């Protein structure tokens, strides 16, 4: 399952993070690592980004990026 499929308001645990090198690095810099629990706060319209929260930090993630984050 990917982060994209998580319902608004639900939580999930990150299993792995895929995607390009820069994107992966940026996500690590924002504190997203496998094993972390994230909550999907909001989903934007027009196939827009997800707003997730991890350890108090809110991050907007485009659908493309979120689709490469595998969660359980």
């Amino acid at each position, binding site marked *: 399952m990917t982060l994209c499929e998580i319902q608004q308001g639900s939580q999930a645990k990150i299993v792995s993070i895929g*995607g*390009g090198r*820069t*994107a*992966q*690095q*940026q*996500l*690590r*810099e*924002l*504190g997203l*690592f*496998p094993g972390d629990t994230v909550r999907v*706060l*909001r*989903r*934007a*319209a*027009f*196939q*827009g*980004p997800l*707003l997730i*929260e991890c*350890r*108090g*930090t*809110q*991050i*907007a*993630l*485009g*659908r*493309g*990026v*979120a689709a490469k984050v595998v969660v359980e």
Partner: protein
Amino acid sequence: MTRPPRLALVGQPNCGKSTLFNQVAGYKALTGNFPGTTVTFTSSRVRVAGQVIELVDLPGAYSLAGANPAESVAQDYLLTQNVDAIINVVDASRLERGLDLTLELLELGLPVVLALNMMDEAHRQGITLDQEKLSAALGVPVAALVARKGVGVRELFATAVRACRQPTAPNRARYSRDVEAALAEIAAPLDRRLGLPPRLAAIKLLEGDPKITALARERAPAAVAHAAQFQRALTASRGRPAEVIINSERHTAALNLCEACATVARSRTFDWRDRIDDVLLHPVWGYVALLAILFAFFQFVYGVGTLIEEPTLALFDNVLATLETELRGIPLALELVKGIVAGISGGFAIVLPYLVPFLIGLGLLEDIGYLPRVAFLVDGLMHRLGLHGKAVIPFILGYGCNVPAVMATRILEEPRERVIAATLATMVPCAARLTVVFGLAAFYLGPAYALGIYVLNLIIVALTGAILMRLLPEETPGLILEMPVYRLPTLKTIVAKSYYRVREFVVVAWPILIAGSIALSLLEFLQLDHWVNALFAPVTWLLGLPDAVGTTLIFGVLRKELALVMLRQALNTSNVAAALSAGQMLTFTVFVVFYIPCLATLAALNRELGRNKMLGVAILTTGIALVIAFVVRVGMGLLGG
């Protein structure tokens, strides 16, 4: 050596480095509540804690890797300039993430002082920090502060100045045994030939940092091969790439530190800020709110501006009338005085009445933290322009001035995105063009026309983006943007920031307006203006404008406001409506909004994108302006304007 000690402010984006800088240096660095406000460094000599120091404000960087050009500035500066001490600013409410960077900075071998900023926010979130424990664990001094209110700033600098003179003994992060073994082996043959401590060089090489690897290929090729060998070995034994292993272990170290030194009294509660986002980020109401906010902003600028423009214009008309009777006998002096008055009154009556309310409004939006929210809302739409939501930040800044907008494209990761975003940002009507739109179209034709021009501009920018995306096809990377919490803007910051930007107009642009007006007076006096107008005749003919407008359009390239200030002078009237029809005014405004960016913007484009792309933008925008202004002319003609 008499050079004052150089202290660099380093920290993750939006942790308050510029706010701290401004607290001691006066308002010299723009601040705002969004990641990437600062894209270049600012330095200033300041006297703090009884000593003169050189303080440098660096752009925020999440790590020493530098995902985009703005972040690379910090990395490059620390590695190439002689910094005497680092003030590592950390958002105390986000300590565990901030410490990732701290642990990297400790590897630089420079004295580091950890500045725990936004302590008030941390308290509000129920976080208590044990500073002494943190200081002992890291082996560096720690100071707590609230930079926004100036709390703890003096103590911080006193500590930092003391740290400059002392040898450092930080407690570096220890990695697992196999990683440490690899680092020791890679570092062993490296002296300081890469310009950074061998252990840090080894970490960067093992992480595969592109910049350090490229540097090592030149100066220590053996180390690159060596590192690659260890990367393969680590990936094979741990099943993950070396950079992921190192980052994860550093992150774990930061988390452990945080767990040992910070206590969180309560779990996350949803407060008023979440309630605001319930509306402002709502899939439907969010867009309604966005439009409402923009419309209110527009009304505010228009309301304040027209209130002041009319009486001020009348006042200067009286002044001019008096001067005309006084100087009737001396034609040259009269022409010159007319030029000077036109330039001065242009600033007072046409520019400042709209500029000041606009800048106050922009400052509010920046400081509250609304810009990243707009990025969130429009990301889906922006993908159709080959950009992602983050690119909306340069666009919005572009409404203030295109120069910082072009520079703000440094927060984008891909070169292609920066080209598209910078091109489109120059098409956004800046505050100078705003004065033309408001001072001419809105003032004489009504606010609906001005609003129409803004909407038309958005449509054209979107179309141009869609075309550029086809020309430069490549997948748009996804949005990754930290969403800052809302903050109440302080009156002091808003005033300081607006003053800082207005001063830009007063000292840079206004003299140009006056000089331009005098130049036009002289041209008219010497009857040379016909020649200049003749050069521009094909354009004025195509757009159905009087010949006299040609000079104003040429001078408008210097400063866009100049086009309007000079228009009154060129038409020899302060009431433009008496000389131009509604259709002509609209055509003129539309042309000025779209045509070639001003000189300062062209210079910024030249710096950021290079000469060829700068020329490309100039040709493209002028072409677009001609087409659209012609369409407006024909359209207005059909409507009987």
